[in-house]
């Protein structure tokens, strides 16, 4: 069922809940239960701050099915302040060009509408974060 497929990821999609390895302190996003660094069990939940910077990015003009109405959109790999990289769309870009290194913060947005029932799927995107 597509509904449950997305529902079970709500903690990740809405609040960047990953894991921290109790053995080596490695922070994991997405959660994966086995630490890729030390190979031990890593099931302690860890909520990421949502702050990070752009590792790389591109603009999508030829979208896969389900994303056509968003074209053009910007996708990035974001390096979270706690370490992990995460793939996410950038949003609220305004006039200032994105660059590698641009500081960003997580926001919740509509990702796509799904299937015949038109279910809306929400989740994380990132927007430029300017020093307050």
């Amino acid at each position, binding site marked *: 069922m597509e509904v449950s497929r997305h529902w079970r990821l709500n903690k990740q999609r809405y609040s960047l809940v990953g894991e921290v390895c109790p053995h080596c302190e490695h922070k994991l996003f997405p959660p994966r239960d086995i630490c890729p660094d030390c190979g031990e069990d890593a099931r302690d939940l860890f909520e990421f701050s949502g702050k990070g910077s752009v590792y790389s990015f591109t*603009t999508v003009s030829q979208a896969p099915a389900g994303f056509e109405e968003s074209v053009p959109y910007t996708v990035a790999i974001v390096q979270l302040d706690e370490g992990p990289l995460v793939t996410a769309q950038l949003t609220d870009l305004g006039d200032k060009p994105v660059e590698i290194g641009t500081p960003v913060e997580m926001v919740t947005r509509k990702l796509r509408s799904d299937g015949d029932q038109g279910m809306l799927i929400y989740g994380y995107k990132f927007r430029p974060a300017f020093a307050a």
Partner: protein
Amino acid sequence: MALNRPSEDDVVVAGVGMTPVGEYWDISLRELALRSITEARQGAPTLRPQALFVANMLAASLSAQAHLGTLIADFAGLRGIEAVAIEAAGASGGAAIRQAFLALKSGSVESVLVVGIEKVTDKVGPLVDSALATGTDADYEGIQGITPTTQAAMLMRRYLHEHNAPDDALSGFSINAHTNAVTNPNAMFRRAIGLKQYHNAPMISDPVNMFDAAPLADGAASILLTRRELLSNNSQHPCIRIAASALTTSTLAIHDRPDPLNFRAAKQSVENSLNMAGIGIEQIDFFELHDQFSILAALSLEAAGFAERGKGWKLAQNGDIQLQGEIPISTFGGSKARGDIGGATGVFQAIEVVRQLQGEAQENQVPNAQIGMSQCLGGMGSTVATHIFASDG
């Protein structure tokens, strides 16, 4: 180091066949596959395949057709034999050859037919892109609207940034591929390009332009493998053996790697292959790598050890990758200009290597080709299948 000596239990090539890469509106997936099977079996008419491995990535998504092993075995007049499809995204072809190698080495079967088939042009646009995206991490990459092109673009931007490389640093890969495709009758784009065309190419997903990305098309390729002891000696071709076979994996999502520009699976796959063959990287005469995107060519050359980190693009700028160069690549045009046949890529590459080693590459011939390496990637180096082929000569 010296290449391992030929032995009776070597896996050897008994026949090869491939269709031109292009758009086949008039024939179906099974018919396209059969064309390459028929040609491959002509190499050893009395050798009936005991097993069939079909390499394919997209038929389930684009043709609503799974279960290709049985479909194609039956259609090819091989009803009843062991037959199964192998899927590892863009590495499916190399993965299928690997499975054939293991099956033959185990002694369980005496002949294996590997068929790479992709029939993609029945669908167009967003449906093709979402089918390609199924090879990424659906929950954490696909849901953000990415495709392999998006991934390649992000890797390419980061590569140019980290290495302070010029915007057109990767142009040499595309120019070389197009030059080699001109004389390949099976290639989709047989037209040379220069730097000017590269600069003027429309942007697909910045910084990936039209000449940084390979065009996806239809095609089929088949290779019939057996053990040397079972091959009749009256073949008109020099015997080509698989001197090494390796398949390795990395993370599916590129964001799960500490350093996305380091193709660790590719490095490991090449190391395993060289160890198995008993040779060093400098003994590889040419390298059919997976240039689905120009950035993948650079990263594959670096992972294999032909160039230091950040220097792979320079091999394309100084002519080292040309047919007469130090390490020729994409000798028949590669994915870029021969055409990208998705999960069939590894089988096309293997046949191109075999043609080089048989000295039958004609105008595309690499001089003194004795040892050739092929490598195909599933995703951005998530799965890597590497094979080293050698001629007895």
